């Protein structure tokens, strides 16, 4: 475990030593701020209208502001997370530092877990940018905090899925551009895969809906922890990391 943490720490430091961390965090902060402000104005106007009709109590900050903000901004991760994962393996292979990792007394699992945790760490830092916005709502209004915590949990799990896919793709190439493009394409597919669901037969529809990573976030943002989604996310992450392990091992045999 301490080995994995040492690698996670190195990965995180690496992100912050290069412009990548600042670019992805800045980009997300900007977009989240924009969405938040936009939806806040909308919420505000609706509240006024409702108050005018004498039904202000029907408005819910969690349901009508926080939830849509997180659902809308989750799309940004499709663009941003490939930039985090592209270097994980590709860069080490290109610069030869992979030789250091593979000849140190580390197991493949420790290396992969370390890289995964490092990327999750940066992702968590991005999510942390949203905390002041949410805190502001606590100052001005009276939102419920449990659904918010569950929303963050869902966001972390969804990010974990994306990162495990990104790691796998990065482990297959030396070229970061290839890694980022391939990862982005796969993310995009996983996002839009259920768009054709309404045209498909009922059985296919269920499968397509089930495969979409972003779809499973919905219940979390409502403040519901459904084991169905939990199992989906966790097994997705484990599968992604397992594929990465196989890929690293295969690379070793190929030489």
């Amino acid at each position, binding site marked *: 475990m*301490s*080995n994995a943490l*040492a*690698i996670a*720490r*190195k990965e995180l*430091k*690496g992100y912050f*030593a*290069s412009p990548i961390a600042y670019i992805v965090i800045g980009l997300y902060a900007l977009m989240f701020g924009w969405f938040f402000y936009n939806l806040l104005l909308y919420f505000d106007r609706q509240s006024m209208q409702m108050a005018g009709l004498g039904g202000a109590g029907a408005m819910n900050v969690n349901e009508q502001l926080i939830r849509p903000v997180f659902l809308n901004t989750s799309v940004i991760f499709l663009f941003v997370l490939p930039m985090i994962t592209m270097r994980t393996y590709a860069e080490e292979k290109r*610069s*030869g*530092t*992979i*030789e*250091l*990792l*593979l*000849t*140190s*007394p*580390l*197991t493949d699992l420790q290396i992969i877990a370390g890289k995964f945790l490092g990327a999750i760490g940066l992702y968590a830092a991005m999510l942390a940018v949203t905390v002041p916005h949410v805190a502001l709502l606590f100052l001005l209004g009276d939102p419920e905090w449990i659904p918010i915590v569950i929303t963050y949990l869902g966001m972390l799990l969804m990010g974990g899925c994306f990162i495990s896919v990104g790691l796998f793709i990065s482990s297959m190439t030396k070229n970061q551009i290839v890694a980022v493009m391939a990862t982005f394409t796969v993310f995009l597919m996983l996002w839009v895969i259920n768009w054709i669901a309404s045209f498909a037969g009922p059985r296919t529809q269920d499968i397509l809906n089930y495969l979409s990573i972003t779809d499973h976030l919905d219940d979390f943002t409502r403040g519901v922890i459904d084991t169905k989604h939990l199992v989906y996310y966790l097994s997705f992450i484990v599968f992604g990391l397992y594929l990465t392990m196989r890929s690293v091992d295969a690379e*070793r*045999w*190929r*030489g």
Partner: protein
Amino acid sequence: MIEVQHLTKRYGPLTAVDDVSFKAERGEILGFLGPNGAGKTTTMRVLTGYMPPTEGKAFVAGYDVLEQPLEAKRRTGYLPETPPLYPDMTVRDYLTFCARIKGVPRSERVSRLRTVMERTAIVDVAGRYCGKLSKGYRQRVGLAQALLHNPEVLILDEPTAGLDPKQIIETRRLIKELGGDHTIVLSTHILPEVSQTCNRIVIINRGRVVAVDTPDNLTARLRGSETMYVQLDALGADAEAALSTVPGVTRVSASDRRDGITGFEVESEHGRDVRRELAAAVVGRGWGLLELRPLRMSLEEIFLQVITEDAAAPGAAPEAAHE
């Protein structure tokens, strides 16, 4: 301490290493010598557990690198051809990270780091970014990384490549010093390096071991006859005839000539010292003897000879080179 048994590594149809076996005892410095693409790096990568062999076994400190990789890796320090540095890290951060993943206990980290940095003379760049270092410093930081966990076995892939002459001398001295308590395998295609630093040489060509011996034995084994270099101030033809008549001399050939001074390479029967007779013959004729010295076969010549013999041998391996 290190044992390689019938190691073979194939990359698809390419055989990079073909049935290589050798041993290195504790404290020994083993030189791995061969032209580029002979399979040196591949053998080292198998030894360090970076890649598995296609066939054969490799043991480091008694541990099979394939069966017990963690135990073997804990006892191995490896400097790859390109030092594996992270350009965004300072030297100190980098070495701290290496110490962590190599399992140096937390309480010893600071002192190990200091020892190693002093030993490789990189203390003055501790705060610099690895990406900004000169080639010489990179190489030394790479070496520091290999020494961090005080491994029993050191595997150095061309440790002096790209260094300036002063750094080369320093690095060789350091390697010799380390030789006492570490077992070292170093690869190089620079011949003087092995004769100066190594106890034993493994010459590898096209993936196969063609000779294993000490530098002295190799020199002696391959020297079929004694050759002297004689320089005198006489005309070529007369002198050649005179030298040829000296008893024991088998062959005389002029090697250089200028301003009435001629140099000859005089070969004599094996084991017979003809220096006195040569000197007498020259002086007796009234010529001036300007130089008389034995010509030893240099390692370059040995190497070329071994490689050529290997190429000429029947059933030589098909073209196979991978670096």
